[in-house]
């Protein structure tokens, strides 16, 4: 195919000389106009398209020329097709991604060509086998997406991979600049949008999404923001997180102290109750036996009953302590810790959110 340049056009010129003048003129005209309309695409693409339409018109007969539409329309279709080729895929953190092929990991593997002609008609099993194999291949990381790099900027992907290794810093910027210089700007823009959206989404809550969208729309300012976020945001976030954790630990420790105290108090109440009750009984007993001096006996018995009452009170106190106060303390501590966690999270969100808003 390389050796034929405008093959159809030339052949037709030789061959059709002296035939139906009208038809020839229309075909010639059509192809010439088409060539003019395609002056903005590469030589190779132009030759391919002209060869195709020369063939097509030769096979169709001249009445089909009008069926194709105007050369301008045909050229527009070719141009859109070329643009779509470049737009279909995009580079992501996982490498090249083509949405058309990605659904449900259905991407076929060129090394797993199980599909022979008509085999799909005979059994459905073949499909399942193929699907499973593809799935396995995909897990092993050898899909034909790798091969598809060939058709879309391989260089872009390399730069991207390097940038990834070095933490999306200067390399990412460089990749962006390189991409802008070269032909596949649109694709690079996709990469960039992806980096930006991931960077900003990871730091922010849903409520900030609208803001970040606005930020992203600002374009080049957004780039600076992402770089700043990556370089300073991560250390800052870890610092905040660390502080948060120490706070949480302190609160936790304090709460444990209070628990200990509460439990100790309850236990003390229990001990006091037992002591008071036994002392009360002992006093009543000794009062009973010392009736020789009634005053002493009655004082002892009275004191004994008093101690018994105190003991009962202590029992009640202990029951209340263990049954109500300690569980309540646990519950409160739990919610305090939860609140603290939420507070810390909100603070992180807010900080990164404010960063976005400022931009």
């Amino acid at each position, binding site marked *: *195919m390389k050796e*034929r340049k405008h*093959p*159809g056009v030339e*052949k*037709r010129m030789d*061959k059709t000389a002296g035939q139906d003048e009208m038809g020839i003129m229309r075909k010639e005209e059509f192809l010439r106009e088409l060539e003019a309309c395609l002056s903005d695409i590469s030589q190779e*693409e132009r030759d*391919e*398209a002209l*060869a*195709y*339409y020369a*063939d*097509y018109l*030769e*096979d*169709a007969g001249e009445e*089909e020329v009008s*069926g*194709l*539409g105007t050369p301008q*329309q*045909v050229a527009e*279709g*070719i141009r*859109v*097709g*070329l643009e*779509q*080729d470049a737009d279909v895929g995009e580079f992501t953190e996982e490498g090249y991604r083509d949405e*058309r092929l990605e659904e449900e990991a*259905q*991407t*076929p*593997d*060129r090394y*797993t*060509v*199980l*599909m*022979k*002609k008509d085999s*799909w008609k005979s059994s*459905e099993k073949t*499909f399942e086998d*193929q*699907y499973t194999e*593809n799935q396995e291949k995909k897990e092993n990381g050898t899909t*034909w997406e790798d*091969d*598809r790099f060939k*058709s879309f900027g391989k260089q872009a992907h390399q730069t991207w991979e390097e940038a990834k290794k070095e933490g999306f810093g200067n390399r990412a910027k460089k990749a962006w600049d390189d991409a802008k210089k070269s032909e596949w700007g649109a694709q690079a823009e996709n990469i960039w949008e992806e980096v930006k959206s991931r960077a900003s989404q990871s730091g922010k809550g849903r409520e900030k999404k609208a803001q970040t969208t606005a930020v992203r729309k600002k374009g080049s300012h957004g780039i600076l923001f992402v770089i700043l976020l990556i370089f300073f945001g991560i250390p800052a976030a870890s610092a905040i997180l660390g502080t948060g954790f120490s706070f949480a630990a302190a609160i936790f420790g304090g709460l444990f102290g209070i628990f200990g105290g509460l439990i100790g108090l309850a236990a003390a109440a229990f001990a006091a109750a037992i002591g008071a009750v036994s002392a009360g009984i002992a006093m009543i007993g000794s009062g009973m036996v010392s009736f020789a001096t009634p005053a002493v006996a009655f004082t002892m018995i009275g004191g004994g009953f008093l101690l018994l009452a105190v003991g009962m009170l202590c029992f009640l106190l202990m029951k209340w302590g263990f049954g109500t106060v300690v569980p309540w303390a646990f519950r409160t501590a739990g919610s305090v810790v939860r609140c603290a966690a939420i507070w810390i999270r909100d603070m992180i969100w807010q900080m990164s959110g404010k960063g976005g808003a400022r931009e």
Partner: protein
Amino acid sequence: MTMVFNTGAALLDAIVLSVVSMEPEGTYGYRITQEVRSVLNVSESTLYPVLRRLQKDDCLSVYDREYGGRNRRYYKITEQGWAQLGMYRNEWSHYSEKISGILLYGRTSEKSCREENEKEL
């Protein structure tokens, strides 16, 4: 014939691959266009970008063959094209079954579909 349902790029790819795959020796642009247009109302100039893309993706290979005193370009399906077509056929059978299920038979899931098939048997 007017078209109510859109034909997406993937479906067009699938149809073109299938048409080309039917000719072991390959087939040429005009004929492919005729075949596709017999089932789908696409304009005559729709298929060049599709064929070109499939060629670039190594799903189709091209070669020139002498015909009537001139060279004619032929398109032939590649191994990768077969794999891609297999994927498309697989996807289509699932997709069309599901759509038909809900559109024509009022079934909402593959499970209920299977149950009904078993009942019928």
